[in-house]
């Protein structure tokens, strides 16, 4: 499938000279007939380009930060479809819908095609030379202390270049921002196990209890976890794993659970401690400090606090005790409160008590090149940046891989703070909300046109360096890769060091080749090493297993009592992270907009999920436009009645409500980020995403919700369509 011994440069040259017209003209395009383009004979192309035969090139997906390997089908110089790269241990040839839509990011009609300089309210096209000169001038004219970089997750050689640039400046700040990230869990894991992201071996677990971790949908590395999940559900011995999901709003993972437990928001830690209590009572050996810490969490009290029935607590405890090893995961629902760290710690304690650490919670491998290890982000970073900007500490701001104007809650006042920054450079694919605010917009290559190396945060086995390579010739000559831009900027600062590199590609190749011994290419010559790496799309590294601790103390563990009722804002708002919309960065890809939300089947809009009981109390029926108001703001959306949500909770999906970005994203739904309250995690200072309290009122209008589900709702009306059977009635081990 993958051609091994060809010369990558030639391929691009072919595309550049002969193939460019092919690449741009496409199939069935009449522009040739119009005389706008030339007909090119295929007779002279390279031997691996056979008309009508697709060739596959490996690369790395850029739709989220999980770092799945992809394999692009290239035909007649155009990338047509992405498949999973079977050689990547993360996704083993599989993909998600979000990843599939990567081609739409590439061919998106709303991409920016040349550098734009602000001129009043308009962007004026300028040349790259001018843009880079401007950057040089602006950066040179301010104190390096006042230069800041805001990025999303960065890793690999781009990160190395970025760090080198910051070094070269002598100062500069790097804020790594992720709007939706398991930051609290990372911190809590660090405390409990000594690593931020331990390896979760779901396939070894017999029971998984997930406290709101949507690992099948949008949590950390969903494609990888989905495969693990499949093996967990159907292992070779036929002992089907049991998934219990504890959360206040059903996620995709919750929808696949054997038992979905609706928990009062914020009481996840109480339930975890209650489970330890029940387990101890059932005879599971626990240390004294733990026993002391959980002593007061009797089943009755826990049931009262959490709303989970004592029966289910008992059953769950029995199940955990009986079937070992198990795996307990703390997800965004547990961490999204002011006491999120405590919740996560209680859950980690449960794992420890169950003896899962070392069994299903395993040590990841160390990374041989720490300078390329991923910098994971959090919302605290944005908050710091925002504060810095408010205090006029930022004179030149670079933004890459983030759209903070969209994802920052209104109380951040980010837009106003940004106005205080005299020169804002945004690296962007689209004119998104942040790019609109920029002084200089630098158009980026799409992930199908770009060179990069990436190191994902969650790696399935060992360590690995993913390679991203162009799958086709650039669509627009006016775009550049982020590596190229950084390299050009470095050339301004450290010309001696970097002037040898013509472009990022040559830098990357030379950096890789010069380290080939460490990259597993000791026995190969340079070209062979490089081409092998490219054709595999992933370089496996040898890393040492990190030491993990599994002995956290329960002494300091205090989980607060459940929330008190709030008469003005009686409901909790859960901003839901859906598998396709995430934080909204892919909202301009129409496949994702048209792909129904798995649980509500709604398309092309946001909605307010609420329990039918809650709706009845408020006199709301499906399709009512409701106003969801918090202390920090209000949004309007259509109401959707949903049997998978706690009656005290309403949920609005994130990622909708763009005011810019492109034709498919703009004006679709409303932005739930904007109304989040300024509540932060006690320990990490992270924004507590689930802490916002809201009131819901009817806005008077009613619409027919645009969704795939028909008037029968989720009912099969007694017809045998989707069937379900108790697992003890089936012998899985006999199945093929």
């Amino acid at each position, binding site marked *: 499938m993958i051609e091994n011994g060809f010369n990558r440069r030639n391929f691009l040259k072919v595309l550049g000279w002969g193939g460019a017209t092919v690449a741009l003209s496409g*199939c069935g395009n009449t522009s040739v007939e119009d005389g706008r383009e030339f007909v090119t004979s295929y007779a002279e192309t390279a031997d691996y380009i056979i008309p*009508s035969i697709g060739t596959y090139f490996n690369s790395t997906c850029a739709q989220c930060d999980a770092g799945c390997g992809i394999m692009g089908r290239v035909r007649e110089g155009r990338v047509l479809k992405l498949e999973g790269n079977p050689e990547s241990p993360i996704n083993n*040839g*599989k993909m998600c819908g979000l990843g599939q839509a990567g081609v739409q990011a590439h061919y998106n009609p709303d991409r920016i095609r040349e550098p734009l300089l602000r001129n009043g309210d308009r962007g004026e096209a300028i040349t790259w030379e001018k843009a880079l000169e401007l950057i040089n001038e602006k950066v040179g004219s301010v104190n390096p202390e006042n230069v800041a970089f805001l990025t999303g997750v960065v890793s690999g050689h781009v990160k190395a270049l970025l760090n080198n640039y910051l070094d070269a400046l002598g100062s500069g700040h790097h804020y790594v921002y992720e709007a939706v990230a398991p930051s609290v869990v990372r911190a809590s894991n660090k405390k409990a196990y000594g690593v931020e992201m331990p390896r979760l071996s779901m396939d070894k677990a017999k029971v998984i209890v997930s406290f709101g971790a949507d690992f099948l949908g949008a949590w950390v590395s*969903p494609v990888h976890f989905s495969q693990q999940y499949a093996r967990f559900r159907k292992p070779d011995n036929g002992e089907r794993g049991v998934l219990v999901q504890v959360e206040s709003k059903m996620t*995709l993972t919750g929808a696949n659970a054997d038992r979905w437990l609706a928990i009062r928001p914020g009481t996840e830690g109480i339930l975890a401690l209650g489970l330890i209590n029940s387990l101890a009572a059932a005879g599971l050996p626990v240390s004294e400090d733990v026993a002391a810490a959980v002593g007061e969490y009797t089943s009755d009290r826990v049931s009262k606090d959490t709303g989970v029935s004592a029966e289910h607590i008992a059953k769950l405890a029995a199940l955990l005790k009986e079937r070992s090893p198990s795996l307990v995961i703390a997800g965004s629902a547990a961490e999204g409160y002011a006491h999120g760290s405590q919740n996560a710690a209680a859950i980690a304690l449960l794992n420890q008590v169950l003896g899962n650490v070392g069994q299903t919670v395993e040590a990841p491998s160390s990374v041989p090149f720490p300078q390329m290890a991923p910098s994971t982000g959090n919302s605290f970073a944005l908050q710091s940046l925002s504060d810095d900007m408010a205090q006029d500490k930022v004179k030149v701001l670079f933004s890459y891989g983030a759209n903070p104007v969209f994802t920052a809650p209104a109380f951040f006042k980010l837009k106003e703070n940004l106005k205080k920054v005299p020169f804002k450079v945004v690296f962007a694919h689209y004119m998104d909300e942040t790019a609109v605010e920029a002084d200089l917009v630098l158009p980026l290559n799409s992930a199908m046109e770009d060179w990069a190396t990436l190191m994902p945060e969650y790696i399935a086995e060992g360590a690995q360096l993913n390679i991203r390579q162009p799958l086709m010739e650039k669509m627009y000559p006016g775009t550049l890769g982020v590596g190229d831009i950084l390299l050009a900027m470095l050339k301004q600062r450290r010309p001696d060091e970097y002037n040898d590199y013509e472009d990022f590609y040559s830098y990357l190749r030379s950096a890789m080749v010069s380290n080939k011994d460490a990259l597993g290419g000791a026995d190969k010559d340079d070209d062979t090493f490089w081409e092998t790496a490219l054709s595999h799309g992933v370089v496996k590294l040898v890393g040492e297993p990190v030491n993990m601790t599994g002995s956290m103390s329960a002494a300091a563990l205090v989980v607060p009592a459940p929330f008190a009722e709030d008469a003005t804002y009686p409901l909790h708002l859960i901003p839901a992270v859906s598998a396709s919309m995430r934080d909204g960065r892919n909202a301009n890809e129409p496949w994702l907009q048209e792909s129904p939300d798995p649980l509500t089947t709604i398309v092309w809009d946001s909605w307010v999920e609420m329990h039918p009981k809650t709706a009845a109390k408020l006199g709301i029926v499906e399709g009512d436009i409701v106003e969801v108001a918090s202390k920090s703001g209000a949004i309007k959306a259509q109401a959707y009645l949903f049997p*998978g949500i706690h009656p005290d909770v309403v949920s609005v999906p994130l990622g909708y409500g763009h005011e810019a970005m492109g034709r498919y994203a703009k004006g679709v739904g409303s932005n739930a980020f904007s109304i989040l309250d300024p509540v932060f995690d006690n320990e990490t200072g992270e924004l507590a995403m689930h802490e916002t309290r809201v009131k819901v009122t009817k806005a008077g209008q009613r619409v027919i919700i645009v969704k795939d589900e028909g008037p029968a709702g989720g009912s099969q009306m007694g017809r045998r*369509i*989707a069937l379900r059977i*108790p697992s003890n009635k089936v012998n899985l081990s006999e199945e093929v």
Partner: protein
Amino acid sequence: MSITNLLENWSDFRHQHPSEDRPHLEYKWAMSIDLDSCTGCNACSVACYAENNLPVVGKEKFAHGHSHHWMRIERYWDNDGREFADQGAQFLPMLCQHCESAPCETVCPVGATNHTADGLNSQVYNRCVGSRYCNANCPYKVRYFNWYDYPTTDNVWPAPMEQQLNPDVTVRGKGVMEKCTFCVQRLTVAKSDARTEGRLVLDGEVQTACQQVCPTGAITFGNLVDPLAKVGKQWMQQQVDLNKDKQAKDAAEDAVKLRGYRILEELRTYPSVMYLEQLRESAI
């Protein structure tokens, strides 16, 4: 010539399908979908959009029911009056069932939809006049009509989005019925490659787009005639017989059940897609 043909081959012309005595010879493409593995993530549906040039119709047309998801994920609740759907949802990937005795085929006035020798339910776009009788008669409602001329509709494939279109698959104009083809363009290539080498397509050699992408591997696709094919083994193990409208195992009162079934089998459509029932643990 034709009369002689009629007389000579009369018994051939009178043979019904599906029948035990006239099995498929080389290929019978079939699928099985494990609902216990399916997580409802929609990857298959998006992959189908990418592979088969399905138009994105936009909110307004979606609201009118003009969507084109050949592979659609249905989500059912089974809370029977309980406060919560506390056993989760039932996700069902619904695609053309490629019925052996397809109700859509008989009613097409122009013969645009046929049963191929490989057991596919094929749709000839060129021939279709758009009477939509096939969809009227499809119990699964998995046929999708081109209500508009999507290639020329705004924002369906705005330049350069049309460059993503798969050249192996036709872009359908208005007034044509379309549906899941089991990625026939991939099957054709695989078959032709195999024929060049003088053999049949091997199991795993060809995958449908939905199967290839599925993160949990819930979808198995293959040649039911091939004794080595996983799909055939699954059908066999689950005792689902392609040629029956009522499976013998359903009448048996065994303690251990087999979970293979076909949807609306009682309508005698003989679907080529077997579903495996979703499982739920009773201990919790």
